[in-house]
């Protein structure tokens, strides 16, 4: 059973559709008790960082998500919220990855970073089983996580940034696997079956 965290702004329907494709049981929830009963957690994120953290506080999920030992996958804003802090709304986040999210800047790039970009796998991960480096995935974000020691995939948009991270049971991807066609479905399948 996968717990799909719904904090009120994330787009849970699209991730749920992929889990249906994979015949995986899931529950859409914001309750601590149901998350505790699940085997794995997916944290899809859309929206604004400080709003999301306020909601997680409201549902009393911050501590649970910081210490949980189950496989945990953060998507897009979900991954950013796993960092120490974010410039978006200047907010303290879950503190799993020692990084601060920054906004894209520069005269030659358009913000948001929106569309299909190439992802380079820089470290081996179960998340990438069956996929080749330089595959394109769909991105839609204005803030990014700088490359750090837990980076397992990177992408270039003005600068190289952390596109996927892994630390113990915690995984994060900046792109939207649920919107990235067959390659994206493979990422979710790997998380569900192998992580």
């Amino acid at each position, binding site marked *: 059973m996968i717990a799909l965290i719904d904090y009120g702004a994330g*787009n849970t*329907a*699209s991730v749920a559709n*992929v889990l249906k494709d994979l015949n995986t049981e899931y529950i859409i929830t914001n309750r601590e008790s149901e998350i505790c009963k699940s085997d794995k957690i997916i944290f899809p994120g859309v929206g604004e960082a400080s709003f999301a953290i306020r909601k997680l506080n409201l549902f009393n999920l911050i501590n649970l998500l910081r210490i949980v030992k189950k496989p945990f996958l953060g998507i897009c804003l979900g991954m950013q919220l796993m960092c120490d802090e974010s410039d978006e709304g200047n907010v303290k986040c879950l503190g799993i990855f020692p990084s601060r999210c920054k906004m894209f800047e520069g005269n030659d790039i*358009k913000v*948001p970073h*929106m*569309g299909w970009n*190439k992802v380079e796998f820089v470290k081996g991960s179960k998340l990438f089983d069956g996929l080749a480096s330089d595959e394109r995935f769909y991105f839609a974000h204005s803030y990014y996580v700088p490359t750090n020691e837990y980076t397992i995939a990177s992408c270039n948009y003005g600068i190289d940034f952390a596109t996927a991270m892994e630390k113990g049971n915690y995984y994060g991807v900046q792109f939207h696997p649920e919107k990235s066609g067959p390659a*994206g479905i493979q990422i979710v399948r790997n998380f569900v079956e192998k992580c």
Partner: protein
Amino acid sequence: MLAKRIIPCLDVKDGRVVKGTNFVNLRDAGAAVELAKRYYEEGADELVFLDITASEEKRKTLLKLIEDVAAVIRIPFTVGGGISELDDIDKLLKSGCDKVSLNTSIVKRPELISEAANRFGSQAIVAAIDIKQVGSTHKIFIKGGKEETDKFGMLWCIECFERGAGEILLTSMDKDGTKDGYDNDFLKELCEKVSIPVIASGGAGTKEHFLQTFRDTNADACLAASLFHYNELGIGELKSYLAENNIEVRI
């Protein structure tokens, strides 16, 4: 490098896809969900649905359409048509679409752009802008191109950007349905003046038109409707052609 996007647009009325010339004379092109699935399988990068249903049942049919479409495609899609309330946007996004496009409602109440961007993030808010040449300038038209406003083309595009729109979907009404190519002059200038992604719309007739727009302007995506609906041009064929001509696309 970010790939240039190819986006089929589906004008939907009561669940069926329709397409007219210069915003009138609608003809039927099939069921929306089936066409969406076909485009996903052919390699479309994204889809846009514009709901032109004019009835009280509109909202319900639109939510149902989004759920049905989200069930069969795994690429992003945008939904537009008569959206004017934050709570409507909330329901649409929760049903499974990724972005909403706003047109008439933001002309009438421009604050809606920033309100929506603050609540849902800029990446979810597309400013759909219909321009038409009037005298020596471009004016903004609303209500599906039926009503002229006092807003000027470029100024309104810049205002939408400044208010927090995440993307501009620019339709040239002069070009729409003509198969004469996109309005590259306007697009070129627009891409120099805003630093958000721009989608070109209106006028695609051949694959050369897509190449011309990607070469001559800094547009991020090209949108077309009838060209794809009636199998005049396949998405796979178009993307191969662009790749052969050194345009970055997702194959």
